Every structure is written in C-alpha cells, then in structure tokens.
C-alpha cells in the first residue's frame, strides 16, 4: 500500500493551530467579560433606587409600588428564612444519603442511586414548581398544617390559616432542590476519608455507625460544611419553583403558613408589572444586584471549603 504523501509545507497545520487557539481563547475571554457585565449592568441600572433609598433599602419593610416606596427587607427576610428552613430539612436527608452511598450501600446500588440523585438536580425547576402547586401545597395544607397548628399553634411559627402557597411550601420545595447538590458533594467528600481512619475506629471495636460517627464525619466535617453552604447558595438563588409556591406577598410574617416572597421570586413575579415606573424597575434591579452579590459570595466560600478539603485529602493520599 502506498504511504500517503506528506506535504512539505505544513502551513495548513500551523494556521489551523493558530485559529483554533484564537477561537477558544476568545470564548474563554468572553466568559470573563460576561461575568464583569453581569455585575456592572445591575449596578448601573439600580443607581436610581440607590440614590432614592440609600442603605434604607436594606432595612425598609415597606414595598409599595403605588406610592413608590421600596424597601427590600421582606424579601431578604423571606430568602433567609426559606433557605434556612430548607437546609434544616435537606441537611439530614443529604447526609443520610451521602453516608448510605459511601459507607453502607452495596457496590451494585451505588452507581444507579447516585445517578438518580444527580438526575433530580436536572429536573427543570418549573416542573418541580408545578408539582409543588398541585401536589405538595394541597398535601401540606390538608395533612401537615392542621396537626402543626393544633399541637404547636402556640408558637408564632404555626399561627394563622394555611392556604397552601406559603413560606413552608416554598421551603420544602427548596429543600428538595438542595438535596441533590448537598448529598452528592458530601458523598464525594466522605469518600475521600482515608481507609486508615475507618480501620482505626473498627479496630477499637466500633460498629459501622460508630465508625461513621467518630472517624468519618468528624474527619470530613469541613468538606461537609462546604457542601451545606453550596446547598444554601442553591436555595438562595433558586427562582422559578419557589416563585410558584411561596404565595408572593411582600409582608413580613412570623408564621410559616403565610405567603411570602424571596429576593429571587419578587423579581420574577413583578418585573413585568412595573408599568413604566423607573424607580420600581430600578428597585427590582437593586434586589437582583444584592442577590447576585450574596450568591457569588456564598458560592465562592463554599467552593473554597470543598476544594481545600478535597485537595488536602487527595494530596495526602
């Protein structure tokens, strides 16, 4: 067989390399520019609101589009409460899943189970929102709220009527959306705990659970903390599903049965209703800017924690 002829001038290869590098380089640069613009635009566009309300924007609890008085406290409150409650529900679940997958599950179950959990993260949030409206909200209203108000009704948390769409419903939905990320990162973290640590506990006569409790979890705690914060970031920024089920009310209420709003949901819900009011638009954008800054800080912090843990562990192994 004839060998293919090798061309003496390899111009095509050279210029191909050059173009390739240029194109991918440009794409990479594009991301940096985009990230910069993502911060710059809302900052500029929220100028009007910042000038009008200053720091009072963060502490004002009145959100009154008719009289053009805007304070973001109800949404900051709603975001914090719903996210914390979501974590309260999601963290035990996620840790349980992570421990099961890394320590207990038979080899055959591990891969399919992890796959399903990661699939849960891929469900479009509007679908989860629809499920929340038609299944979860009525369920919570009919089966969870009545006993809560009967037995724990003396707490301000469980007072007043529950119509279905509420802070509680929003938090449960958020918990469902937090579980995949928190459990899969925790699992990854727990998997890197050295075998010697487990064996140290086992050789002392620890049972499986005791080994997890005294050797695995303490060793992995900083990484797990990072996974939890990542989940928190997800809860803070989640928009669609929570907008659909939280009830959309810009009033602060101590009761989890009351409708509420988060920073993300108020933007999604109201930005088409500004009727040309520049201050209204600008205020919503300022809420968006705050959300962006908070989310970025949370995510960077969480990733640093997880990276540090994984790097130290993999480096040591």
């Amino acid at each position, binding site marked *: 067989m004839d060998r293919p002829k090798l061309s003496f001038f390899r111009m095509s290869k050279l210029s191909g390399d050059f173009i390739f590098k240029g194109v991918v380089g440009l794409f990479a640069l594009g991301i940096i520019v985009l990230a910069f613009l993502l911060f710059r635009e809302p900052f500029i566009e929220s100028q009007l609101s910042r000038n009008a309300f200053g720091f009072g924007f963060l502490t004002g609890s009145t959100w009154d589009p008719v009289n053009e008085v805007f304070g973001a406290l109800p949404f900051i409150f709603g975001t914090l409460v719903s996210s914390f409650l979501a974590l309260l529900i999601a963290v035990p679940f996620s840790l349980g899943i992570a421990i099961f997958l890394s320590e207990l599950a038979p080899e055959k179950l591990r891969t399919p189970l992890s796959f399903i959990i990661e699939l849960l993260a891929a469900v479009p949030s509007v679908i989860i929102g629809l499920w929340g409206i038609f299944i979860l909200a009525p369920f919570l209203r009919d089966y969870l709220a009545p006993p809560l108000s009967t037995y724990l009704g003396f707490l301000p948390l469980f007072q007043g009527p529950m119509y279905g769409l509420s802070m509680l419903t929003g938090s449960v939905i958020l918990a469902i959306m937090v579980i995949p990320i928190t459990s899969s990162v925790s699992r990854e973290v727990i998997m890197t705990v050295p075998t010697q640590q487990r064996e140290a506990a086992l050789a002392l006569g620890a049972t499986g659970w005791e080994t997890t409790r*005294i050797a695995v979890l303490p*060793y992995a705690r900083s990484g797990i903390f990072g996974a939890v914060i990542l989940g928190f970031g997800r809860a803070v920024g989640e928009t669609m599903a929570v907008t659909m089920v939280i009830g959309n009310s810009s009033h602060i209420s101590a009761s989890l049965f009351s409708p509420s709003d988060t920073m993300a949901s108020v933007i999604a819900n109201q930005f088409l209703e500004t009727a040309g009011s520049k201050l209204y638009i600008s205020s919503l954008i300022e809420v968006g800017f705050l959300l962006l800054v908070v989310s970025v800080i949370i995510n960077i912090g969480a990733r640093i924690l997880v990276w540090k843990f994984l790097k130290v562990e993999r480096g040591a192994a």
Partner: protein
Amino acid sequence: MPEKITIENLNAWFETKQALHDINLSIQENMITAIIGPSGCGKSTFIRCLNRMHEVVPKAKISGKVLVDGKNIYESDVDPVDIRRRIGMVFQKANPFPTMSISDNVVAGLKLSGVKDKKILDNIAEESLKKAALWDEVKNDLNKSGVSLSGGQQQRLCIARALAVEPEIILFDEPCSALDPISTSKIEDLMLELKEKYTIVIVTHNMQQAARVSDYTAFFLYGKLIEFGETNQIFKKPMEKSTEDYIVGRFG
C-alpha cells in the same frame, strides 16, 4: 506454655486471588511472635485475620479457624466488634483521629463501650499514656490535637489508644516502618514491657527488629507459612532453604 491463639487451616482471599494458603500456627500467651517475609507474602493479611479486620475489605473472604482461648472467632455467633475489643491493633501508618485531642484519642474506645465518667476517663488516659511511654512528653498538651505530635509520638498515641480498652492481645502491623531509628527503638522497648501483660503479634519487614524483640518467628512466603519456631532457631539454624535465603538477604 499456654497457647493464646491457634490458627487452623486458615485460607484468605481478595476477590478470587488467594492471599493465604492453609496456615497452621500457634501463638503463645505473653510472648512476642514476629511474622516476617517479603512484601506481598500475606503477612499483613494474616495478622488482619486474627481480629477479623480482613473481612472489612470489600470482597475479601476467609476459611478455616482462628481459636482464641479455644473459641473459634469465626463462629457465626461471634460478633466481630467484641473480638476487636479483645484484640487491639496498631497499624503501619499512625492513624490518630485528627479532630480529637490527645486524651480523647486515648479514650475513644472506652467511650464507645459507654464509659462516661470524666474522672475515670482521665485516669485511664493517663495510665495508658504512661504504659505507652508517652505521658511525660504530652502531659501538658493533653488538649492538643493528636496530629500535632511527631510520627513516633503519634504511633505511641495509637498504642495508648489500643491499650486503653484493655485488650488481651495486641497486633502490630509494621508499626515502625514509617519511623526513625530512635522512635523505633522506643516502640521496641515498649513492646518488651507490654509482653508481661499482653500477647503480642508483630508483622515486620525488618528482620533485625524481629530478632531483637520476638520470642517466636514465623516466615511467610507467597501466602504460605514456610517455617515457624523460636526466634533464635529461625535466625541461627533455619531448617528451610528459603528461610535462610531470606534471612541472609538473598531476596526480599
């Protein structure tokens, strides 16, 4: 001389690979028995069969009997957790719990057994650290993390941790392989003191160490027990050609 452990027809596998072939061996009470042999000869696998740590490895299997005081520890009514409380282990790489203080490390096993009284725990921590010849070096730093210590100190901390639960037997799996000569000799002295009260089995790739500390020596090769006898005899007049070859350094 009473036998503490009797091993009968012991075979061990990792998945389909057989790591131990038909081992028969007796370990005497209050003696140090050394297991020597080249890397991969099954000596670590063997020692891990004595406290049921071999089965912790996924897909590991075992057959045969290990009798401790005449009772087979692989009988179905025996809980491996109980066995491991009676038979302590010190590993090749010191593995203190990094989030626990020095004293918490020592009493970790006791806490598992339900001892809660702070005074008792403190007393046992002190006593165990003294037995492990570490007390004088750490008595002012008991609340510091276990991993703040040097490698040799960490290993003695792990010995203290194993002693605190008052085992009858202590297994040492190459305890000095990561240590400098001074730390090594401290641990060897310690073992010689401990044999007054405990039965000791040590895996070592260091033949001088085996010769220095042990009363009996077993030579393993390719997963088989080649020769077993008094340490003096094994090192001075080995019966088997391969034992002699290994001891004089012709291989391994």
